[in-house]
């Protein structure tokens, strides 16, 4: 049994903002619960996928785990140490082992540095190597991510999207990271290039024994990449389990809708449309005032079909993640 590399316990990240100068004077801060009590763990050499609609807090989780954001409360235990309590100096030591692949390709690479300098700098931060050793390491990295050596003298803007993504991966590997948060690594890439990147990440995982937290809204890619999948809705995990279970035998109505919207879109003939349970209302959700009780209730078809039971909307009976079978957990009063 492989050991647990990262454990997240009841993690919360609330952002605050003020509206207008008068509310600032009155010290009335509005709080947005971007991540609101999330717990999960990652085993070594495993990929956990994090899916959900935009704005549900996926990226915030990734950033908070790496302490790029300070959590409001909760624990993040990496390799036996609670990193929410570490000082900046202690964190720096850990950064060599945990890294993030950022979503925005262009913002992540310094436009004024050549690829060689970008990689050299990253290596230099965490390892003291001679020039010759650095050179050797860079060659090794390029080989690992399938990038041509001639690209080293290029600037980021001269590279295509797929190549930029490879540089991002090479930089993360260069510091020797074992745990990687991959934030939408395939969005903004064309399908043909997307497949290259997915293959690359999976190869690297096999060869180097990496652990991934894979954040994406692309359900197919998540299912393909991940061993386990966690589905998020408005700052909470609503369902978690093995990826094939989540995709093919979901228990939470939201998960069901997510995946059926995919197959429905995918089906080539109109006649072959999946039976849809999408009867719920699909309005705008208000993040500042999430619905009392189950957050998904206002959009939930099961809630409608059960005649709007009070248990779903009582604040006291907000559904908690309950284990069903074989580690599959779901937060719903009426699992499918």
């Amino acid at each position, binding site marked *: 049994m492989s050991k647990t590399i990262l454990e997240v316990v009841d993690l919360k990240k609330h952002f605050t903002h003020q509206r207008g100068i008068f509310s600032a004077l009155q010290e009335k801060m509005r709080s947005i619960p971007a991540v609101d009590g999330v717990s999960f763990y990652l085993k070594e050499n495993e990929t956990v996928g994090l899916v959900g609609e935009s704005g549900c807090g996926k990226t915030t989780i990734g950033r908070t785990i790496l302490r790029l954001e300070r959590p409001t409360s909760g624990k993040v235990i990496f390799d036996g140490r609670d990193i929410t309590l570490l000082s900046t100096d202690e964190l720096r030591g850990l950064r060599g082992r945990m890294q993030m692949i950022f979503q925005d390709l262009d913002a992540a690479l310094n436009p004024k540095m050549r690829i060689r300098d970008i990689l050299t700098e990253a290596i230099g931060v965490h390892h003291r190597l001679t020039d010759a050793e650095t050179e050797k390491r860079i060659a090794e990295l390029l080989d690992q991510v399938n990038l041509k050596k001639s690209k080293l003298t290029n600037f980021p803007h001269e590279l295509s999207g797929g190549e930029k993504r490879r540089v991002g991966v090479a930089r993360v590997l260069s510091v020797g990271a074992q745990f990687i948060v991959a934030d939408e690594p395939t969005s903004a890439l*064309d399908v043909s290039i997307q497949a290259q990147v997915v293959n690359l990440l999976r190869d690297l995982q096999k060869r180097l024994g990496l652990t991934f937290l894979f954040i994406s809204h692309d359900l197919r890619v998540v299912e393909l990449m991940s061993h386990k999948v966690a589905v998020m809705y408005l700052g909470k995990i609503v369902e978690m389990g093995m990826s094939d279970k989540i995709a093919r035998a979901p228990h939470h109505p939201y998960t069901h809708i997510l995946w059926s919207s995919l197959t429905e879109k995918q089906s080539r003939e109109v006649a072959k449309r999946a039976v849809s349970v999408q009867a719920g209302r699909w*309005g*705008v959700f208000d993040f500042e005032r999430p619905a009392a009780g189950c957050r998904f209730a206002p959009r939930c078809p099961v809630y409608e079909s059960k005649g709007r039971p009070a248990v779903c909307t009582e604040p006291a009976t907000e559904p908690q993640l309950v284990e069903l079978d074989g580690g599959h957990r779901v937060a719903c009063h009426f699992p499918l």
Partner: protein
Amino acid sequence: MMAEPLLAIEDLRTYFYSRSKRAFIRSVDGVSLAVAKGETLGIVGESGSGKSITAMSVMGLVSAGPGVISGRIGFRSDRVERQLLEGLDTCVALRREGGRVMAVEKDDDRWAGQVEKNMTGIRGREISMIFQNPKQSLNPFETVGRQITEAIMLHTSHKIEQEAKEKAIEWLDRVKIDSPRLRFDNHPFGLSGGMCQRAMIAMALSCEPHLLIADEPTTGLDATIQSKIVDLLAELKSELGITTMLISHDIGIIGRLSDTVAVMYGGTVVESGPAKDVLSCSPEGKHPYTAALLASIPSSDAVREKGHLQAIEGDVLDTINIPAGCRFYGRCSRVTDKIREKCDKQEPDLREIASGRRVRCWLYFE
């Protein structure tokens, strides 16, 4: 036999002159397409393949300085019949030195005037367009309702504001926006991405155009919202029987909504035909690019078995230095020794290989 085309594009070329590179970026390079009345033409291709520029050329939106268009775009409905590119070539002169274009001299004012002349009564009234980014395409300072009302008053016979307003509310209702009367007074920032896209669709359809161009109507929306928008488009299509040109990089959406499909690569159409043939799983009779593109999408089987994805090696075509031979030659895995010479040197043309199916590949020409 194809029904009478509503829109016929012949050998469309849209180039942008890059002063720093001293060369043309050949975004659209010889596209011929036809959209028959009442049917939906889907255009698929990766980013940079020229899909959106084709649509913008049709709408007369390529007006900015360095853009140059040639070819023919014929539009013919029961109200209007017109050549949309008429007279544009006279507004541009190329300065050549030793066979190489050194600069483009374009009379921008005359160009703009000519475009206006060609497009009056067409844009909005006959052809309307849904843009990729709904939030950016709506005016942030105006309420959604007023923007639709304005379009209706401008393009249809409803000239009285109250009447146009009622019409606008009716359309908001038709695109399934909850409580349309309330939403009428919302600004775009008060609506979600999906609602903005619905409002855009309402605006585009409110003038009852003959042709609707939908440029990536679902890109940037969440999966659940995407399927709602696709459902809406499918419903409107069967209800109104409107002719549509649907542009997307998402093959799933194209497959759901289109009757015929054109696959674009590097500024040209490499394959076109009935949707079910072009998007079927077997690589038989397909352009190698289409086959590879379909294979690189994670299919349900591949996902289940956690298999290796079939990536297309290499990178998307550089539209400045277009090779002399087939555009896909560098990435093609189906080149045989017999045709290698031809693939490298000579560009294949788009030929009909079966009824309604046209492919641009030496593999199928004997």
